[in-house]
């Protein structure tokens, strides 16, 4: 029983990391209908910005909660800037082109960032500075909970709620929904669509940056290709939940994290990565729009 509950805890913590990355995926898709493949690389950049800023500001020598917040802030800002640039230079010029062009560009941007990372950061793994060290681990009987993981789960959940709030309760959110509903119509109504799309990218990328720092803290080994697998898995999680849906992305990510955990724990650990895609295929066969997706027709 203890083992089962421990697996449950591990699965939630893994899922909450996927969730942070998946939220950004889903937002960008919701507004642009674009799968931003470079999202995983923004996450990687976030981890490296955290690595350098944490060390530069000396938080690795005197860990504190403030250190974590500052590192998170720096990373999120740097990543939202990166998201802004990616959108401006790689995607905006192609907005009127066929969807496939922009998709290929996204793959290109992703590779560009990966190998630039290798160039600038070196490809040997780096040890992420422990900018925040909560006291020990929480022990409940034989259960072990790393407070950091609770933090990540909490951060993911609150980010989800914040996003929901932004999308449904603010003017920016309303503009986002309008742009996602009909790009041209929104512009006719006087909505600055370009700016809205930039905002969306910045918000999504900032989330990825936060995820990069938190992952670096929990799994302190970072390298330029660290974004590939989490990026793919989070993408799967977003589709599982119904892409374009914030709650769906969160639920899909937790679901995927738990599924992976239990497959490794009670079954064949070699099938971990295959599993994510088996789930994806099954869900899409049964419910093509994902768990929370709404039936609709593709606008052509």
């Amino acid at each position: 029983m203890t083992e089962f509950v421990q697996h449950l805890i591990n699965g939630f913590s893994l899922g909450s990391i996927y969730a942070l990355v998946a939220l950004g995926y889903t937002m960008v898709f919701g507004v642009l209908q674009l799968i931003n493949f470079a999202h995983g690389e923004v996450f990687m950049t976030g981890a490296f910005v955290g690595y350098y800023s944490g060390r530069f500001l000396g938080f690795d020598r005197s860990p504190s909660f403030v250190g974590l917040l500052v590192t998170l802030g720096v990373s999120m800002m740097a990543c939202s800037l990166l998201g802004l640039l990616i959108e401006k230079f790689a995607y905006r010029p192609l907005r009127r082109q066929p969807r496939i062009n922009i998709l290929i560009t996204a793959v290109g941007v992703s590779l560009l960032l990966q190998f630039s990372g290798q160039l600038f950061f070196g490809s040997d793994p780096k040890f992420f500075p422990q900018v925040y060290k909560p006291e020990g681990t929480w022990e409940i009987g034989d259960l072990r909970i790393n407070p950091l993981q609770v933090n990540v789960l909490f951060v993911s959940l609150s980010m989800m709620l914040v996003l929901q709030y932004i999308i449904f309760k603010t003017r920016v959110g309303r503009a986002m929904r309008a742009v996602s509903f009909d790009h041209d119509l929104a512009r006719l109504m006087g909505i600055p669509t370009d700016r809205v799309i930039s905002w969306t990218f910045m918000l999504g990328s900032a989330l990825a940056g936060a995820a990069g720092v938190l992952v670096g803290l929990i799994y302190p080994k970072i390298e330029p290709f660290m974004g590939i697998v989490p990026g793919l898995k989070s993408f799967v999680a977003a589709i599982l939940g119904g892409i374009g849906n914030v709650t769906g992305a969160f639920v899909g990510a937790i679901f995927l994290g738990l599924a992976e955990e239990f497959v490794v724990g009670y079954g064949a650990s070699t099938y971990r990565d295959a599993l994510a895609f088996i789930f994806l295929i099954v869900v899409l066969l049964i419910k093509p729009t994902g768990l929370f997706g709404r039936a609709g027709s593709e606008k052509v």
Partner: protein
Amino acid sequence: MSKRDMTVGTLLPINIGIGALAQIFGMMGLFCLIMTSGCTKKQTFEADNSDYIKVGEVGSMTGAEATFGISTHRGILLAFDEINKSGGIKGKKLKVVSLDDQGKPEEAATAITKLITQDKVVAVIGEVASSRSIAMAPIAQQNKIPMISPSSTNPKVTELGEYIFRVCFIDPFQGLVMARFAYENLKIKKVAVLRDSKNDYSVGLSDVFTESFKKVGGAIVEDKSYSAGDIDFKSQLTSIAAKNPEAIYVPGYYTDVGLIARQARELGIKVPLLGGDGWDSPKLKEIGGDNINGSYLSNHYSTEDQSPHVQRFIQSYKGLHNEAPDGLAALGYDAAKILAEALLRTTDESSPALRLAIAQTKNFQGVTGLITIDEKRNATKSAVVLKVDQGEFKYQTTIKP
């Protein structure tokens, strides 16, 4: 339209078709293709000069296991410098042409092809990792160029042809060493295994250890696997913890072992981890921190060995790089020295003659012990067991074949 027309939580009504997904996954395929075709960097290049004997080297100078390649390279350079200072080989100086494989088997194959066909090297030293040596060996064999692996321990490596040698022991021995040490010295009866299923070295060593440990009388209570590059090992470790082993055998590379140790301690697993020479890197303690203390690894040599030739090597290395040489550096040094010594003994400059000279290496006094190349082109020699203590590798015992 009012806000309520939207289902709460739905950002937009869409329908991803299977066709669109197929396109995406097509992209992924393309993406993977691009990922695997890098390019090899050349580190030294000079016009072909007949005053030199060119020796090739393939190693992971960059990538996840960069310390392996860098240490080995430094060991080789040190050996060649010493030989060149003492007059070289029959009046010619030795020169190493070093290529980086970024830690990828396919890159290693490309690199050795280039060394043989374009750089016309007389022999190749490399690789550290068994999976990469296995990718290189058929090419060396096909071109009849001797290849000496400093530290690939998987038995398959030298079975790939008569031109493939190694100067280290093989996994059947390394696995046995740890099995015997755990059972006899640590009095451990129950061990769990955690293997890297993507890595020839790790899989071979896990199998051998399992077999040997059962043979000496122990039990394997759990066998789980991960893939190199994973960052989350908690599910495997949780399952392992539930079986209450007295030790966990993790014959992986240092990059993953550091994280595994960290997460094991987080889950309250206090038993020692056991491993092999793949742990041997200064990075192990950087990533693992205090969590790796109290664990044991089998290795090729110990810096605490007081023999004069070992201490002399350590001093020269320290003088150049300000750090103690790890086992990989020592093996790189030995591989280079054995090759040089064979070059001295060859009757003519042909590959078959050089191959024969390497095969006849007997009782060569290397840093990592007395090296004799046996008929299977492997080195028979002792292994040492080291304990990680405050980030240092402390000598425990030597186990002879």
